[in-house]
């Protein structure tokens, strides 16, 4: 075991370029490294989505230069059917793992959790550094799949067996699929190390006066997410190990007998394809809540700040997030209604899936209800936070349909599903990341981002993502099947204009993101220097300099006197009271008027 107290690890600030910026044990550097990795992954993932959308509506369009990435997959730059699926697989894998799990959780969480609880660093700084570099290795192994043999796998980010277990079932299913499985297994280890740190730090390193209920909502979200992630990734890892063994060691966990591929009998027997699905989705469903909960926490944190008043109920948000986390382990079968599992199980899984609507609705009602009578401040961060509410609702209501097995009979495997998860994960969670970036960039980099560019970015993204993903639901209602590299079926021909509209919206919205990247890069170096508390926030990250010193609080840990979010308190000295301010106030909770 390591020197565990940050106190011992941080007697002196780090020296030297490598220690300061590369192999740093400072949670702030690690948080920025995760953010940077996520930024790289999202740019690759977004570019992949452009290639996919272009191919769907202009199948013979030659992408200049693509033939150098894969001469077999894109001869002359024209994407083949298999290469479309390979790009799609990498798009999903990069986005779900290396963007949605990395940025809102590992990125912002690493940077801000210790500061928000008043600690000097995470509980295990060296494990923390290891968790980033292990994740980075996983990323490199995944990207390597682009450059080997037949290229990346084509079985989707869900990698169902036997397609994913048998090398002979398609291009990319040999070396590419093995690299994919190794990459994800390595990623699991990185996440487990990260969750270990988050949980231990939250439980053990809170400063004096920082009770659990006084932690900001984003801290709670990171804590709950790390608990979910600990158990979920601990199941994905065995699944990947078993898959790798089936592929390279001749075992048959997922491959049954009597399969014939390319007229040859496959030399496996007795395995169960459904076993892969159960293991994968037991991880997979909690994973999507890992993707959304940190964003929900970040949005709650930012909304309160922009409302200039506490939320109607701090505790309800916390209990709802916990409830969602708990229920997330009971619903995995709703991905498998039509999988051939016992049809009675479908009903069993359907009920908790419907019930999870309740805490989600409470969250939305509190966000909107707290807006009533507030003093809403509009800035880039709050715009994206408000946009999150809208997107979360839009994505959530399509869940009503998919949660019912009978309706899933029609909508499963269609663009309706794709619309649903893109709205919640691909848009709402991303809005949470954007909101967090605009809100916290001043603290992380010591410089303000450009507000005008931020607002332009918001408008383009808000309208653009609705234009892209709302039509997905209509396509799904017609029965447009997903994961098709081309639309050759008779009934799909009339839908091509919709697809063209989506592609153009996607390319335009993608272009708008360049404004964000430019803003981020420019402000990092040339932005206006940021004050300590540019948004008049109350939580502890605003009680230190921008950026914070290497030990977060300059050697003196803060003492906490108040609940977070003491905005607009009657009788207080100003419009907000910081958590570590010794000023005596009658807070809402102490007054017992609000919950």
């Amino acid at each position, binding site marked *: 075991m390591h020197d565990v*107290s940050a106190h011992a690890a941080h007697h002196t600030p780090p020296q030297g370029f490598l220690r300061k910026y590369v192999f740093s044990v400072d949670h702030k550097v690690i948080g920025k490294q995760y953010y940077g990795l996520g930024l790289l992954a999202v740019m690759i993932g977004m570019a992949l989505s452009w290639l996919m959308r272009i191919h769907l509506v202009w199948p013979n369009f030659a992408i200049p230069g693509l033939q150098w990435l894969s001469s077999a997959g894109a001869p002359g730059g024209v994407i083949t059917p298999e290469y479309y699926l390979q790009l799609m697989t990498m798009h999903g894998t990069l986005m779900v793992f290396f963007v949605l799990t990395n940025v809102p959780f590992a990125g912002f969480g690493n940077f801000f959790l210790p500061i928000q609880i008043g600690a000097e660093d995470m509980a295990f700084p060296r494990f923390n550094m290891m968790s980033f570099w292990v994740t980075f290795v996983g990323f490199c192994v995944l990207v390597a799949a682009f450059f080997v043999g037949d290229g990346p796998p084509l079985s989707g980010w869900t990698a169902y067996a036997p397609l994913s277990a048998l090398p002979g079932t398609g291009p990319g299913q040999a070396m590419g699929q093995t690299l994919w499985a190794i990459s994800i297994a390595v990623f699991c280890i990185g996440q487990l190390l990260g969750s*270990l740190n988050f949980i231990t730090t939250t439980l053990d390193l809170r400063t004096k006066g920082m009770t659990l209920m006084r932690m900001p909502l984003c801290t709670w979200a990171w804590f709950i997410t790390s608990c979910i992630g*600990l158990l979920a*990734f*601990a199941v994905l890892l065995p699944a990947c190990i078993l898959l790798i063994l089936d592929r390279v060691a*001749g075992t048959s966990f997922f491959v049954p007998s009597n399969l014939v591929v390319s007229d040859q009998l496959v030399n496996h027997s007795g*395995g*169960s394809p459904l076993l892969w699905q159960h*293991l994968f989705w037991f991880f997979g469903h909690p994973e999507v809540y890992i993707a959304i909960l940190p964003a929900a926490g970040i949005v709650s944190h930012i909304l309160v700040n922009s409302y200039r008043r506490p939320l109607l109920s701090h505790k309800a948000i916390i209990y709802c997030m916990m409830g969602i986390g708990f229920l997330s382990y009971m619903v995995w079968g709703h991905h498998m209604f039509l999988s051939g599992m016992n049809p009675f199980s479908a009903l069993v899984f359907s009920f908790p899936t419907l019930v999870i609507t309740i805490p989600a609705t409470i969250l939305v009602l509190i966000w909107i209800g707290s807006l009533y009578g507030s003093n809403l401040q509009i800035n880039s961060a709050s715009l994206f936070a408000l946009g999150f509410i809208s997107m979360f609702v839009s994505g959530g209501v399509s869940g009503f349909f998919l949660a019912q097995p009978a309706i899933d009979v029609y909508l499963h495997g269609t663009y309706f599903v794709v619309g649903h998860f893109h709205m919640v994960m691909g848009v709402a969670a991303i809005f949470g990341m954007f909101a967090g970036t605009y809100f916290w960039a001043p603290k992380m980099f010591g410089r303000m981002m450009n507000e005008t560019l931020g607002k332009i970015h918001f408008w383009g993204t808000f309208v653009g993502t609705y234009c892209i993903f709302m039509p997905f639901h209509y396509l799904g209602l017609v029965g447009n099947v997903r994961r098709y590299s081309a639309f050759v079926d008779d009934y799909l021909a009339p839908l091509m204009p919709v697809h063209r509209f989506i592609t153009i919206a996607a390319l335009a919205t993608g272009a708008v993101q360049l404004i964000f990247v430019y803003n981020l890069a420019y402000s990092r170096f040339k932005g206006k220097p940021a004050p300590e508390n540019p948004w008049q926030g109350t939580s502890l990250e605003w009680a230190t300099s921008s950026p914070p010193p290497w030990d977060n609080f300059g050697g003196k840990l803060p003492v906490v006197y108040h609940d977070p979010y003491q905005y607009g308190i009657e009788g207080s000295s100003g419009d907000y009271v910081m958590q570590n301010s010794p000023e005596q106030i009658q807070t809402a909770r102490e007054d017992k008027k609000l919950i």
Partner: protein
Amino acid sequence: MATTLQPPPTINSAARGLRYVKPHESSAPSTGIWVGLAAITMTFAAFTSAMVVRQGSGNDWRHFSFPVILYFNTATLVASSVTLQIGRGRFAAVLEGIDYAASALRALYGTLVLGCVFVLGQYAAWLQLRSEGLYLASAPSSSFFYIFTVLHALHVIGGLLGLIYVTSKLHRGILRASTLSAASQYWHFMALLWIYLLLLLVVRI
């Protein structure tokens, strides 16, 4: 005859060349270990359910005779937990100043040795299986046998590395009680986990 109770002699361990200092304590190592053990439990639970499903999904399980050496290995691992607990007790006395660090060290060395014997014994079991023609891919039963025992052994080796770290700190006189505590929790859990796996394999193999 009047007898007066003498307090136990306070040993000036500096006189014995093993200086001991009481370092700053934190509860984080223990919390961290419990969190880690939760993840490990979940991993083995996933493998267990995979095994149960796989056994039911085909009729090619192929039972084989359970290697008897595993019972000896179990005894070895449990014994190592016992020596570790003895070591903890002695270390507590060291902190009170009423025992030598050397005696605690002896108990820890014993644990390390027994732990290595366990791993070697597991290796012997694998050799025995190989001599019977049972490899990883021979049958689902042997697949899971190897998976469970190899993964457990790897975690035990990780525990051994941790115990080596603990022992070296004790030797240098800078071991914290919380570190030893955390390492012990991990080690005892490895023994409990092994007992669970033993029962599982005895019933299913």
